[in-house]
């Protein structure tokens, strides 16, 4: 079944970042092969009189995907709100991936400023995708602030460690059954993505694991398949693990030789 995010429907459950690819052509190929319909982008100081940004803007437009601008690198509410406003000016979308970083080493969100910024942006007509921790109470506050999607981390950005706290991710799924939940940050390999999709997450956002792979386009497709497999398995209903063996072959009708 398709996924709906702030009124837009997508069939791919992979959101792809656009940073760190070896070349624009490889980025474009990775996007095409992954079949992603949403890419994240950023805003930075223009140094080439508009030409550098213009070339990248054209590349993104040619991909024909939804654009999710981010506020990466912002460390305060004020900075994040201004960056979001500037992103809306550039990309002409109300979507914003809201990041307010609170720690230099872990790039952990500053959840207090995040909630504050989310309140301001939601009131200003933005559709906020908050990059948050896996904390339930923060999730509740973000929803109360008007967010209709949550994006918990599973490990620090770019770390490739994979899900570090499965019980927390499970609780979040159980607590917010009707809210689209997207795991953002920390996914390193396709099996990590499958695990979170099997937990019932709606989508996965990644960047470095694809962009820094030996063959980014092939890795993008590998992730797309892994995400689809995890989602399909969740929908199909999985066995719960048990401690003792259960014979899979029927016991009744077995030959007696003793």
């Amino acid at each position: 079944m398709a996924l709906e995010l702030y009124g837009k429907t997508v069939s791919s459950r992979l959101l792809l970042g656009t940073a760190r690819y070896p070349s624009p052509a490889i980025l474009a190929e990775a996007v095409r092969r992954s079949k992603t319909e949403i890419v994240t982008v950023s805003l930075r100081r223009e140094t080439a009189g508009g030409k550098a940004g213009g070339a990248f803007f054209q590349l993104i437009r040619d991909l024909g995907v939804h654009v999710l601008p981010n506020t990466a690198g912002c460390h305060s509410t004020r900075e994040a709100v201004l960056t979001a406003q500037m992103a809306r000016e550039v990309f002409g979308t109300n979507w914003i991936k809201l990041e307010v970083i609170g720690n230099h080493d872990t790039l952990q969100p500053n959840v207090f400023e995040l909630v504050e910024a989310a309140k301001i942006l939601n009131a200003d007509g933005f559709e906020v995708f908050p990059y948050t921790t896996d904390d339930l109470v923060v999730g509740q506050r973000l929803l109360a602030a008007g967010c209709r999607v949550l994006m918990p981390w599973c490990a620090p950005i770019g770390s490739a460690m994979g899900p570090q706290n499965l019980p927390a991710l499970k609780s979040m799924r159980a607590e917010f059954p009707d809210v689209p939940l997207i795991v953002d940050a920390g996914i390193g390999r396709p099996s990590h993505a499958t695990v979170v999709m099997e937990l019932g997450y709606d989508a996965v956002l990644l960047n470095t694991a694809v962009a820094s792979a030996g063959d980014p386009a092939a890795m993008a497709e590998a992730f797309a398949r892994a995400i689809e497999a995890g989602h399909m398995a969740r929908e199909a209903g999985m066995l719960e693990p048990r401690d003792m063996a259960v014979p899979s072959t029927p016991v009744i009708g077995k030959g007696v030789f003793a």
Partner: protein
Amino acid sequence: MKLTVNGETQELDAGNLADLLAKLDYEGEWLATAVNGELVHREERAAHFLKEGDRIEVLSPMQGG
């Protein structure tokens, strides 16, 4: 007058923000501008007069995750 554009302080002669962008060869519908930490919309640039010491940010689309 002294203006700081994207972190670099320069002696520049520009009446309004639109003039300044033209003078510095900035062009493109994809640019976003802020003066002293406040967004200045594209259509407001010509009416936004600059004064000594203003800090101007000119941002454009870049790769992001």
